[in-house]
């Protein structure tokens, strides 16, 4: 199908079917049946086998019509991509539609207290007893685990295999007695994440993805989609601005999904607040403050333009240059410098938080949130390793843990 044909067909279908008065699930069920909700998916599974290049065309028509798309919140799309790649037909039938309609929500159970940067070092154990998997262990940094119906679980099934070969990947029912979810409070007062305690939690044998021992391969599928889609969550979060039941329900869905991310603008340093704060406080009259703001803006603007440069090159179909791998580290530097500049501008105001503090406490929140940027989603150190090894092709660190049985690998005994 060429672009014009796609455009015409989508527009026609939307004209005939889109109705903001529908309930969100009702509309999305219809949408999934049509294949236009995820047109690049297989026709067999709610899609239309359309090439990736034509997806923006479909999205444009949706935007023109003001039509709402399928549910897209973060972990949900990772779950779908992973199930599409590795799931059985039974799993696809059971999960994919309810992912698209937004009826089921998902969480990711990879990180553990003892393995932060080192995901493959997971020690949560799954043992096959009788006719089912019994899972014990602890997971952390799980967003929205308290709301999720299903979890993507990485667990160790073989301690005599090497680190990466002893892992398996399961879909776990989060609403069972063996799963306890506790909020994990952060230093900035928010609790965006959860700890998940798994105590004799049960997974039926048919809920493994791929095969026993193949969990690392499946995990990489999820992580790859996570890296690719890092921006998706935030851009989607803008929602659609209209009147009608579907719009109302979508806004409520967005509000719930975005709740854990409320402090994310602050952890990014709120560069946008710097000039207004400096002007409001009069600090802008100090040449030293101007220098520091200048330094920050040079870095922030350069980082922004670097991201745009990478995006443009990608759109033009050029091979990815080094500029494409630098975003996370750049953001981290920008956030850290922004926190310093906010401190400088605030002066004594940096002593205060909440309504007593500058910008109604927003500056204090920046200071206490920024440390997350250089840690979450891969520390700065891991980012530098990745840039050095993948982009600059520098030698990898000699591995000390991947060749022997995992039970012999030194690991944390306390968390």
């Amino acid at each position, binding site marked *: 199908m060429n672009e014009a044909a796609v455009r015409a067909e989508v527009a026609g279908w939307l004209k005939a079917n889109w109705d903001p008065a529908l309930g969100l699930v009702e509309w999305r069920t219809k949408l999934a049946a049509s294949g236009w909700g995820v047109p690049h998916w297989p026709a067999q599974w709610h899609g239309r086998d359309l090439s990736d290049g034509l997806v923006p065309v479909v999205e444009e028509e949706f935007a023109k019509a003001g039509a709402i798309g399928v549910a897209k919140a973060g972990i949900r799309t990772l779950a779908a991509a992973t199930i599409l790649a590795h799931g059985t037909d039974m799993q696809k039938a059971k999960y994919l539609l309810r992912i698209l309609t937004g009826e089921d929500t998902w969480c990711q159970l990879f*990180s553990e*207290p*003892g*393995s*932060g*940067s*080192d995901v493959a*070092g997971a020690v949560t154990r799954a043992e096959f007893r009788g006719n089912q998997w019994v899972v014990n262990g602890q997971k*952390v*940094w799980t967003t929205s685990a308290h709301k999720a119906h299903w979890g993507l679980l990485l667990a160790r099934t073989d301690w005599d295999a090497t*680190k990466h070969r002893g892992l398996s990947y399961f879909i776990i029912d989060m609403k069972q007695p063996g799963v306890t979810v506790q909020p*994990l*409070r*952060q*230093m900035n*007062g928010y609790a965006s994440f959860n700890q998940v305690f798994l105590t004799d939690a049960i997974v039926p044998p048919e809920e493994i993805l791929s095969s026993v021992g193949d969990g690392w391969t499946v995990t990489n599928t999820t992580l790859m989609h996570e890296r690719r889609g890092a921006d998706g969550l935030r851009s989607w979060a803008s929602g659609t601005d209209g009147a009608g039941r579907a719009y109302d329900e979508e806004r409520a869905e967005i509000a719930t999904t975005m709740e854990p991310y409320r402090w994310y603008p602050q952890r990014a340093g709120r560069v946008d607040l710097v000039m207004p704060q400096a002007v409001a406080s009069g600090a802008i009259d100090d040449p*030293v403050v101007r220098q520091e703001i200048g330094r920050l803006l040079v870095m922030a603007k350069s980082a922004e333009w670097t991201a745009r440069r990478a995006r443009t090159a990608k759109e033009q179909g050029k091979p990815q240059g080094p500029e494409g791998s630098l975003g996370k580290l750049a953001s981290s530097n920008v956030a*850290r410098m922004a926190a310093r500049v906010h*401190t*400088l501008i*605030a*002066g*004594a*105001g*940096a*002593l*205060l*938080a*909440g*309504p*007593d*503090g500058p910008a109604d*406490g927003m500056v*204090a929140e920046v*200071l*206490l949130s920024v*440390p*997350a940027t*250089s*840690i*979450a989603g891969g*520390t*700065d*150190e891991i980012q*530098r390793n990745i840039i050095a090894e993948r982009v600059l092709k520098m030698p990898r*660190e000699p*591995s*000390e*843990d*991947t060749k022997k049985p995992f039970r012999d*690998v*030194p*690991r*944390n005994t*306390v*968390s």
Partner: protein
Amino acid sequence: MKFSFSPEQDEFRSNLRRFLAERSPAKEVRRLMETDAGWERDAWRRINGELGLTAVRIPEAYGGHGFGFGEQAIVLEEMGRVLLCAPYFSSAVLAAGAILNAGTDAQKAALLPGIASGAVVATLASVEDGGDWEADATRLAATRDGESWRLDGHKSFVLDGHSADLIVVLAMAPGGLSLFTVAGAADGLERRRLNSLDPTRKLARLEFRAVQAALLGAEGAAAGPFARVMAEAAVLLANEMVGGADRLREDALAYAMMRMQFGRSIAGFQSMKHKHADMLLEVELAKSAAYFAAAALDDGDGDVMATASLAKAAASEAYTQTAVHAIQIHGGIGFTWDNDTHLWFKRAKASEAMFGDAHFHRERMMQQMMGDAVMGAGS
């Protein structure tokens, strides 16, 4: 100038470290920081009863032990290590310092013994809403009222200002900048605790409406003594800060040694080793400046104002930088509420701003030094 601690001082420090480790574990810090005052009179009395820390630098004639800044710097460094929740800085550094520098003999005899014993908790209120640390920004007005004085205006960022028994207040009198003492419970004084970034150290805003006050020293004579108190406070806070920074550094090192990733201790990764080497360097340099500045106060050095600013600037950068690194070294866990690192991080950020940030103190230091440079430029 002394560059090393005497055996007596070393012993004092190690006793104090043991004592404070026992009395002020993180659990106790967390308990006290959730209280409104941020400290408890019982615990405060016990600490003072046993070691008499508030008395350290108060002369024997006024009920103190008569030691110097060197000894008080040790006290503060050790308190900074454990984030002791107590009104020590407000009472034994700020208020005692103001009374010692500005008060008459009679006033010292009347006010200092209570502070020395810990029975009276005092503080100093100098800066106002704008957060300008310079004395000439003082707007709070003092007017004569018969034999006494009345104060009208406000103060902010006052350490333990909502819980202190006695408040030394910097005000503008008809005769110029002057210091006054006011009872914490005085009529017309409205005290509101502020929401401080650092929950282990409480700040207050004070509203004065015709509050009765007693003049401390002579009218219009406060500028010199106040500048001296601020220099002392900068030096002693710098010592407290290097204590906190060193503790953070040690804890981060211990964590790195214990933590395994990729089958090895993360302390073995070269980037971790280099970070720790840099942290050690920065903290040790800041320590030297803090120690030197305390010795300069004792020795009555001429350029003590510049040295005080230097020490505060060094400590500000070192403490904040160490705190940033410490969280990073702990990784995700370091960002959680249950991990203790953020307590020191918040103290670091607050201490950075308290009494003027590094930017303020570098400028102040340069202003002090510029006279010399102009003279030395031709050589």
